[in-house]
């Protein structure tokens, strides 16, 4: 019965979305207040209806109701409860419901907390939000209905792909979707602004917290996916430039650019057209990503042909949403006029340069990802893989990262480069000393990597240069500095952390790429091998039983300088329901490096193929990402960016250069 109620709620949500898409917009255009007032309750109702549908689906999975087709295909009665729940979005239909749930959640949040938005703007934003929701709700009901029954129901389900039965991947999709879909708010605000023909500081102040929230979720989601790939795929790789990864990386790059350009709109009333365009592009990338993944057009032509209805439907949605917004942009953008003027060398100029690099990077990833598709249309089969992306991306990002610490130190309007440089000399010194020391230690064997680490040091120390300056660190008593730290705007603290976190990530990337050690060998029980200062002794394999799998569990003793450090238990698991096996690596981490052990195939006589890796600074990849997210969240708590509660007490423009330097 719950299933039918869920089905009904979903269809009802379509009609609410239709009303919400049409009435408030009409009202806003004609100045009819009661019609505009429809938007808020409609957005809330729509969210509740989709939530009801989602919960009905969760209930069907938890109760193992195999009369529901999706449950029968993707669940199994013996699966642990956690994976029954996460299995809801471990399939196409369920994941689309989650997508729309998050979309309507954002709409409801704008409706609930956006009470101080001007009524016409709120009505228009919610209207656009509802149009997107309507498209996807119709898509679900028409082509991907999760509530279809099977008669007669099977005795048990097919189970979930064992690879998805992992905590890292179970929660990766919701965060990724929070990010993807979160950009829809920026998109709706951009389209509403184009319709109104007005973009001002207040507009930017409303858009930024939503973008920041989406960015945090997307950053976390991507990091989580990368972490999962690292420990699950069995050889310690963490980024593959796979089309599906790129699909999440493109909105991230565009969203990061948007986050920065919106600052200029808010503080200086400039770059309006560009910011609106970025908001449209960021969400367009999210939609393209959804399309690429859903249609499978990039990964397998057959997958596309298997279900052309879905691919064509999403392509149609994509054309309407992206095409429509771009046409609107072309017509209305000239209306938006910048009033803030600035010299090329200024904070604005620095942020513009940031946008140049980030958007070109997004463009390169986009073109590289789609190039094989274009080429195949001309009968040329080509692959664009990691070697291409690493090279091109590295060349683009190096100058960007070198300049990054200087940006926040530039003054608005007109800056003094020498003055900014004087404030980061410490960072330059630290980076220089680090490079010289490392060159000496490594004996000049990996010059590029040493400079990479120097760059990371420059980023990390440089990020804190501005903060140290503000709190007069080491120049005033520590208590005094602490007091100053407490009144530093949260947005500034957040920026410092985010930029420093990026430096930590860079250090991780460089070290793992340059100094990873590996040992692939056949080990007999009792045999010992040495790697990066560790001794690893193989003690044999014994069977183990999991809730829905059986495993071979390896026993390894790791020692350092003759003392036992840890016992590692890598596994090979076999899932009888799916007839699939997985490999679970075992990792010993010190925070500065990972010892990574993988159990391979039986080589006869108790001997095993074994892979052992030492990945220096690998944990920094994710520690850095978490620091970046923390920075974003701290920035979000800045009282000027209270989600949905931008202060209207202050006149919207000209905003004081609060986050910054003395002009």
């Amino acid at each position, binding site marked *: 019965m719950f299933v039918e109620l869920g089905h009904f709620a979903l269809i009802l949500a379509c009609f609410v979305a239709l009303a919400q898409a049409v009435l408030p917009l009409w009202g806003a255009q004609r100045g009819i207040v009661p019609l505009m007032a429809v938007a808020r309750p409609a957005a809330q109702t729509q969210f509740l209806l989709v939530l009801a549908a989602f919960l009905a689906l969760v209930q069907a999975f938890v109760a193992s109701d195999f009369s529901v087709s999706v449950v029968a295909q*993707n669940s199994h009665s013996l699966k642990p409860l956690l994976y029954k729940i996460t299995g809801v*979005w471990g399939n*196409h*239909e369920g*994941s689309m419901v989650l997508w729309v749930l998050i979309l309507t959640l954002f709409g409801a949040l704008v409706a609930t907390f956006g009470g101080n938005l001007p009524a016409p703007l709120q009505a228009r934003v919610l209207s656009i939000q509802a149009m997107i929701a309507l498209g996807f709700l119709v898509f679900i009901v028409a082509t991907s209905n999760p509530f279809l029954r099977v008669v007669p129901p099977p005795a048990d389900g097919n189970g979930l792909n064992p*690879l*998805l039965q992992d905590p890292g*991947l179970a929660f990766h*999709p919701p965060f990724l979707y929070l990010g993807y879909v979160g950009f829809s708010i920026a998109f709706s605000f951009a389209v509403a602004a184009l319709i109104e023909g007005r973009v001002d500081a207040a507009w930017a102040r409303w858009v930024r917290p939503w973008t920041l929230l989406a960015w945090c979720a997307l950053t976390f989601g991507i990091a989580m996916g990368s972490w999962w*790939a690292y420990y*699950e*795929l*069995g*050889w310690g*790789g963490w980024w*593959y430039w*796979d089309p*599906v990864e790129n699909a999440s990386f493109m909105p991230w790059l565009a969203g990061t650019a948007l986050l920065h350009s919106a600052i200029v709109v808010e503080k200086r009333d400039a770059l309006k057209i560009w910011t609106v365009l970025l908001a449209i592009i960021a969400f367009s990338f999210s939609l393209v990503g959804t399309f690429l*993944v*859903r*249609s*499978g057009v990039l*990964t*397998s032509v057959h*997958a596309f042909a298997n*279900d052309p209805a879905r691919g064509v439907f999403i392509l149609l949605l994509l054309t309407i949403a992206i095409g429509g917004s771009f046409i609107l942009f072309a017509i209305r953008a000239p209306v938006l006029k910048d009033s803030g*003027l*600035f*010299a*090329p060398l200024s904070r604005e*100029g620095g942020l513009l340069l940031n946008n*140049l690099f980030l*958007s*070109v990077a997004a*463009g390169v990833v986009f073109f*590289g990802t789609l*190039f094989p598709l274009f*080429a195949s249309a*001309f009968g*040329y*089969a*080509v*692959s*664009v*893989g990691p*070697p*291409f992306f690493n090279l091109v991306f590295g*060349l*683009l990002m190096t100058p960007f990262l070198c300049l990054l610490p200087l940006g926040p130190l530039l003054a608005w309007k007109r800056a003094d480069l020498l003055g900014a440089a004087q404030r980061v000399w410490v960072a330059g010194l630290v980076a220089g000393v680090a490079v010289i020391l490392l060159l000496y230690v490594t004996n000049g064997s990996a010059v590029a990597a040493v400079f990479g680490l120097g760059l990371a040091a420059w980023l990390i120390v440089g990020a804190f240069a501005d903060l140290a300056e503000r709190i007069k660190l080491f120049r005033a008593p520590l208590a005094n500095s602490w007091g100053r730290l407490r009144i530093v705007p949260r947005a500034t603290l957040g920026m410092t952390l985010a930029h420093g976190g990026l430096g930590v990530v860079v250090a991780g990337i460089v070290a793992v790429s340059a100094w990873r050690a590996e040992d*692939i060998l*056949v080990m007999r029980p009792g045999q010992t091998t040495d790697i990066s200062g560790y001794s690893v002794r193989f003690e044999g394999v014994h069977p183990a039983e999991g809730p829905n799998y059986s495993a071979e569990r390896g026993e390894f003793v790791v020692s350092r300088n003759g003392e036992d450090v840890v016992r590692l238990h890598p596994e090979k698991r*076999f899932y009888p329901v799916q007839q*699939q*096996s*997985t*490999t679970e690596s075992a990792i010993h981490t010190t925070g500065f490096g990972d010892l990574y052990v*993988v159990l*391979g195939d039986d*080589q006869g006589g108790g001997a095993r*193929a074994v892979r052992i890796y030492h990945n220096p600074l690998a944990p920094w990849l994710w520690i850095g990402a978490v620091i970046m997210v923390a920075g974003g969240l701290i920035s979000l708590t800045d009282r000027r960016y209270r989600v949905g509660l931008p202060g209207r007490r202050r006149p919207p423009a000209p905003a004081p250069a609060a986050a910054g330097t003395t002009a």
Partner: protein
Amino acid sequence: MAQQRRCARVTLILGWLLLATIVVSPAGPGAAVEPNEMLADPALEDRAREISRELRCVVCQNESIDESNADLAHDLRVLVRERLVAGDSDDQVVQYIVDRYGDFVLLRPPLKPQTYILWASPAILLLAAGTIILLYLRRHRRTAAPAPLTAEEQARVDALLKADAEP
């Protein structure tokens, strides 16, 4: 089992996302290079690994033969090592494989007329975006500097300032 685990890695990456579209793909994590494939000569083996990382497992998704667990990847890894032992240079080994599988096998697209646009794309994008920014900045600088005062206006300003200074 190992033979069944084909194209494993990408199926994993796509993970839950592609479950619906990739209907059946016998999957298991990639295990890549096996100990018994490796060459005794470490220098030669290092070269083999370098080459392997640049070659695509053509039955897989965006996965190098160094990472892949597919049978074909295994065959190619062995083939690469055979050519190296036979005394081929790195380029000759790669050419040998390309002759049989086409450019598709290269993860780093070769530089040729069909790919000029791809390799030029970063420079083109950078140049285009840079030009737009320069135009924007120039237009703004022009509006930024107001027209200088005429002599008459300057005289008036001076007079007003003077009047202001002498109360």
